[in-house]
């Protein structure tokens, strides 16, 4: 629009001013995190560091504080994302390609699953894990995380698969290819970006999850960074704010980078809407 009528211009000034205030309000808590991480004498209030140093980062970058928990986070999130993507691709294929009687109830069930408040379930999940002797089991936690991300993943995967034209598969069927062969040789290669979006979406969710590993994993050497940061806060939180902030930033960088990757290169920023939060 080439119009610059006075009302339009004043409208622009108003929206810019309001938005600038919102930006400041949203940025302040984040700015504290960044400034405190490079300040060896950080407090809880935002302030400019007298001397900028990376000492906080070197202090937390030790095997027991950062590396082992981050590795645990990686194992949990990657394990969960791999299982979820494989199971979701398998489930999405018949849902997308065949008209079966089970489709409708299954999809309703899945939709219902996406709405379950998982935090409400953690008490009964804990009892169930105790009963089956799965408490403190990394594998058990991975499977539980995968099950909770599965409903949304199946839904997303089916939508991506619906967008893949069926004509190529029909040719393969005529040639006598089996369902699994068609899926792995034709459909999956065609929907790589969709697979990446779902994988990253699930990975980000699992990486950021605090409550599930907090309840299900008890030994410190199995706990992911989310839980070890919380313990760190409990032990040194009242004195070492700078180190807490530094550890938090190291732990956040992977998911922030993945989010930027998805929204820039896969156009999936809004596809992520729907589940990053617990």
């Amino acid at each position: 629009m080439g119009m610059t009528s006075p009302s339009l211009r004043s409208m622009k000034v108003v929206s810019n001013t309001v938005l600038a205030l919102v930006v400041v309000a949203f940025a302040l808590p984040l700015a504290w995190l960044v400034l405190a991480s490079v300040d060896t004498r950080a407090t809880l209030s935002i302030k400019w560091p007298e001397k900028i140093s990376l000492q906080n980062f070197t202090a937390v970058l030790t095997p027991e504080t950062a590396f082992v928990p981050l590795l645990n986070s990686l194992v949990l999130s990657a394990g969960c994302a791999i299982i979820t993507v494989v199971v979701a691709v398998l489930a999405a294929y018949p849902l997308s390609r065949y008209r079966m009687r089970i489709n409708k109830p299954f999809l309703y069930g899945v939709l219902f699953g996406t709405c379950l408040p998982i935090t409400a379930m953690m008490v009964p999940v804990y009892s169930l894990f105790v009963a089956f002797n799965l408490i403190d089991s990394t594998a058990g936690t991975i499977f539980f995380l995968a099950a909770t991300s599965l409903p949304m993943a199946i839904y997303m995967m089916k939508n991506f698969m619906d967008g893949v034209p069926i004509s190529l598969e029909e040719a393969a069927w005529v040639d006598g290819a089996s369902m699994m062969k068609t899926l792995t040789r034709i459909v999956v290669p065609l929907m790589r970006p969709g697979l990446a979006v779902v994988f990253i979406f699930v990975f980000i969710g699992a990486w950021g999850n605090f409550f599930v590993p907090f309840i299900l994993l008890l030994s410190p050497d199995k706990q992911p960074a989310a839980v070890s940061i919380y313990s760190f806060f409990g032990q040194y939180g009242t004195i070492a704010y700078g180190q807490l902030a530094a550890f938090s930033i190291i732990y956040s960088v992977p998911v922030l980078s993945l989010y930027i990757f998805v929204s820039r290169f896969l156009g999936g920023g809004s596809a992520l809407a729907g589940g990053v939060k617990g």
Partner: protein
Amino acid sequence: MRSIPLLPAIVLLVIFLLGPVISSFYGSLTNASLSGTAAQGASFVGFDNYLTLLTDPDFPKSLLLTLVFLVASAILGQNILGLGLALLMRSSGRLIRALVGTFVVTAWVMPEIVAAFSAYAFFNDSGTLNGLLRAVGITGPNWLYGLPMIAIILANIWRGTAFSMLVYAAALHDVPEEIIEAAEVDGAQGWQRLVFITLPLIRRGISTNLMLTTLQTLAVFTLIFVMTGGGPGTNSATLPVLAYQQAFQFGDLGLGTAIATIMLLIGAAFSIFYIRLLKPEVD
């Protein structure tokens, strides 16, 4: 034969989602506890846990706090701010739009425990907010102890608005520009165009978003747990926090499970409403 690929999904969902739901209903009827005699063998106590909840002042209080939290932080806060931001971004400069996108979305994408620490530091008695207030001569209250609900409501708006903003930005993007322009030519004021044309056109986006933000906010645990721990006392204990406190801090698994079951029922009621809303998409 054709439904065989659904099997792994069904197995996972039945064991890890349906299983806990069923055991939640059963567990809420027992006196299971973390330690002591009832930890070895829990016995069936019928609806005792639910009766305890009804007579315990903490539970009705927690229900009310949850309702306040939902209405103030999700239905009003995140939705209105998200819609406002999406609308304002359409008539703002490029730079400011990029900045809003960056900071609002970062607060949402960050791991929840990190967001919770940032909010904890911001609202702490000696934190950023009171520091700023002191700079203009106001002695701020001790937010986390004195006004814990205000603090967690604001923190949750900060944490979750990006979702509504993205949903509304996408919905507004689909509104045909000719309709708005035609209304402008007919002399409709800005707010008239918003209320009578834009909002009705994005009503599907609005109802979906209201539903999803409500469900997400109902499940918020970490933010409240880190900021106030549900306290002081139970003054900011919404249902998920109260369930945790009862089960793991007071060791009464049966009571915690009863609270969890009630939350599942509330969530299910919302979900059924939401699924009816989305019905045309599944059919």
